[in-house]
C-alpha cells in the first residue's frame, strides 16, 4: 500500500497479529469511510480490541499494512495519532487525581492541547459537576464518560471507541449517541467497536463484522438490513434434511446455522420481509414441526447468522463449542 485513499479514514490490508501461535487478527481488510460512524462488530475475542491496539501503535502487526487518515501508517508514525482520539479497553486514569486533573495531565502528553479544552470536553460528556472529585470515587459510567472526554481532548479527526457504552446508563447512552452524531456532522469519523447490536443499529452508518480475526461482512448498515428477513428455525435433528428441502423451495438462501441445544438444530433462511410467516406454515405442511423460531430484519439477526450465537471457538471455527447442546452438558 503506497498511496492512501483520501476517502478512507482507516484502511487495512491483510493485517495480521498473532499472540503465540494463535492469530488474534488474521488478514483483516478494513475500510472505514470518512465522516461516518463505523460500527466495528464482533463476538468476544474476535479481534476488535487487538485491531484498535494496532491502529494506535500499542502493538505492532506481524503482517499487512495500514492507512490512517489517508496515508500509509506504521506504529512509528506517532505524530499521526495527534489527529486521533481513542478509548481502548477500559478507561484508565490516575485514581488519586480529580477528573479535571486527569484531563490536564493527559492533555500535556501528545498534541498541544489548550487548557480550556478540558472544560469543553467535560461539558460534552456531562461531567463538569463532578470534575473536581477524585476519579477513585467515580462510578464505572462516570469513568467511561471521562474516557470519552480524554479521547476528545485533542479535537481529533478520527475517534476510536472500544465498547464506549460499557457502564453507561440509558440517558448516558443516548447522550453519547447524540455526541457521536454531532461529531460526524462536523466531518469527523468515529469507529465504535461493540457487541451491543441494538445500540449499533441506531448509531452506525457503516458496519464491519469481524469473527475469528477476519472481516466477514462490511457495508452500509441500511444495505445489510435491506437484505430481507432472516428466519432461524429450530427443528429436531432427524428432520434437518427434510426441513432444508422444504425451505429451499421458499428461498435460495437456506443453510444450517450454527448453534442448537440438545436434539434441536437451527436452520437459517433469508426471505422477503412479507414472507416470514410462510416459513413455519411451509414446514408444518411438510410434516416438520419447528421447536423454535426467531425472525428479524435487524442487525442482531444478521450478526448471529454471520458469526453464530456462541461466536467462534478458539480455533476460529464458527458455531458452538464442543459439548454444547450434547446430552449431559450445561449451557453457558
Amino acid at each position, binding site marked *: 500500500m503506497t498511496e492512501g485513499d483520501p476517502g478512507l479514514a482507516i484502511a487495512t490490508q491483510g493485517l495480521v497479529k498473532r*499472540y503465540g501461535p494463535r492469530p488474534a487478527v488474521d488478514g483483516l481488510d478494513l475500510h472505514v469511510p470518512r465522516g461516518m460512524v463505523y460500527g466495528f462488530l464482533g463476538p468476544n475475542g474476535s479481534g476488535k480490541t*487487538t485491531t484498535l*491496539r494496532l491502529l*494506535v*501503535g*500499542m*502493538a*505492532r502487526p506481524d503482517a499487512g499494512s495500514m492507512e490512517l487518515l489517508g496515508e500509509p501508517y506504521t506504529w512509528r508514525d*506517532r*505524530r*499521526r*495519532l*495527534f489527529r*486521533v482520539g*481513542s478509548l*481502548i*479497553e*477500559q478507561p*484508565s*486514569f*490516575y*485514581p*488519586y*487525581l480529580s477528573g479535571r*486533573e486527569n484531563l*490536564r*495531565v*493527559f*492533555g*500535556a*502528553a*501528545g*498534541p498541544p492541547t489548550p487548557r480550556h479544552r478540558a472544560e469543553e470536553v467535560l461539558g460534552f460528556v456531562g461531567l463538569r459537576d463532578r470534575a473536581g472529585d477524585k476519579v477513585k470515587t467515580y462510578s464505572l459510567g462516570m469513568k467511561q464518560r471521562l474516557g470519552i472526554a*480524554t479521547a476528545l*481532548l*485533542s479535537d481529533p479527526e478520527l475517534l476510536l471507541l472500544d465498547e464506549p457504552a460499557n457502564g453507561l446508563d440509558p440517558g448516558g447512552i443516548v447522550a453519547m449517541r447524540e455526541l457521536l452524531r454531532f461529531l460526524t456532522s462536523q466531518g469527523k469519523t468515529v469507529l465504535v467497536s461493540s457487541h451491543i447490536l441494538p445500540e449499533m443499529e441506531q448509531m452506525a452508518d457503516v458496519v464491519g463484522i469481524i469473527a475469528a480475526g477476519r472481516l466477514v461482512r462490511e457495508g452500509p448498515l441500511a444495505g445489510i438490513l435491506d437484505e430481507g428477513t432472516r428466519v432461524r428455525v429450530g427443528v429436531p435433528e432427524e428432520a434437518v434434511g427434510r426441513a432444508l428441502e422444504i425451505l429451499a423451495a421458499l428461498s435460495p438462501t437456506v443453510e444450517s446455522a450454527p448453534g442448537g441445544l440438545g436434539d434441536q438444530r437451527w436452520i437459517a433462511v433469508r426471505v422477503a420481509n412479507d414472507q416470514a410467516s410462510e416459513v413455519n406454515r411451509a414446514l408444518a405442511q411438510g410434516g416438520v414441526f419447528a421447536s423454535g423460531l426467531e425472525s428479524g430484519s435487524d442487525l442482531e439477526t444478521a450478526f448471529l447468522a454471520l458469526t453464530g450465537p456462541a461466536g467462534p471457538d478458539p480455533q476460529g471455527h464458527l458455531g458452538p463449542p464442543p459439548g454444547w447442546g450434547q446430552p449431559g452438558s450445561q449451557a453457558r
Partner: protein
Amino acid sequence: MRLLAAEILKLRRRWASYLVLGSLIGLMALIFLLVVLTTGAAPRGAPMFLRFPASYGFINQFVFGLGSLLAVAYAAAIAGADWNWGVFRVVVARGESRARYVIVKFIAVAVFLVIGILLAYVTGIGLTYLAGALSGVSVGDPLAAGGAEDLARSLGFGALVVTERAAIGFAVAMLLRSQLAGVVTGIVLFIGEQILATVVLVTTLAGAGFGEGMQPIGPEWFQFLPFSIGDGVLAEAPTLGGGAEGFLLNPVPLGLAILVTVLYLLASMAIAALSAERAQISG
C-alpha cells in the same frame, strides 16, 4: 515543559511522596529522641554526632543510606504505577513519544528526590539543635571549621548517588511493567548487592591473609557495582567513620566514582526509555 509540569502535579498529589519523606524524617527524629533520652546516663556525655561538623556524618547516613533504599522503592513505585493503572497506554495512544515521557517522568522524580533530600537535611540539622538543647550540650556552629564545605559536598554528592540509585529502581519497574515487582526487585537488588559486596570483601581479605598491620586493599571490582559505586562518591562526604570499608578498602577515586555513577544513571535511563519504546501493550 508542560509534560514536566504534569508529572510534577502527579507527584505532588501522591501520598507516597509524603510518606517516603515522612518515614525518613520520622526515623531520624526517633534516633535523636533516643539519644536525648540516653545522654544523661552516658558516662562520657553527649555523643560526637551532636556536634557539627560530625553531625553531618550522622545525617548523611540517614539521608543517603536509608534514603537511598526509600528512593529506589519510590522511583519503582512511580514507574510501575503507570503500567498498573493502564495510563501508559493512554499516553501512547495520544501519540506522545514513549522515550520522552519516561525520561521526563524520571526528571520529575529526581526533582522530588532533591527536594526531599534538602528537607530531610534541614530537618536533620534542626533535630541536632533540638537534641543538643534538650541534652544541654552545645552543638557548635554548623558552618564553622569547614562545615559549609561539608554541607555542600554532602548535598551535592548525596543527591547524585540517591538519584542514580533511584534510576535503577525506576528502570527495573519499567522493564517489569509492575509497581510491586519493581519495588521488590529494586530493594532486593539494592540489599543483595550490599550483601554480595560484603561476602566478596570477606572472601578477598581471607584469601589475602587478613591480619594485623595489613594495608587497605582495592579498589576492588565489587566497588564498581551499580549501588556500591555510590559509596565511592559518598566517601568524600563526612561520615561517622567506623565502617569496615574505611580501613579495609581503599575508596574508588572520587572522579572515577562520579563518572561511573553518572554512567549508571544514564544507562538506567536508556534502559527505561528503550524498554518503554519497544513495549507492546497487549492488555
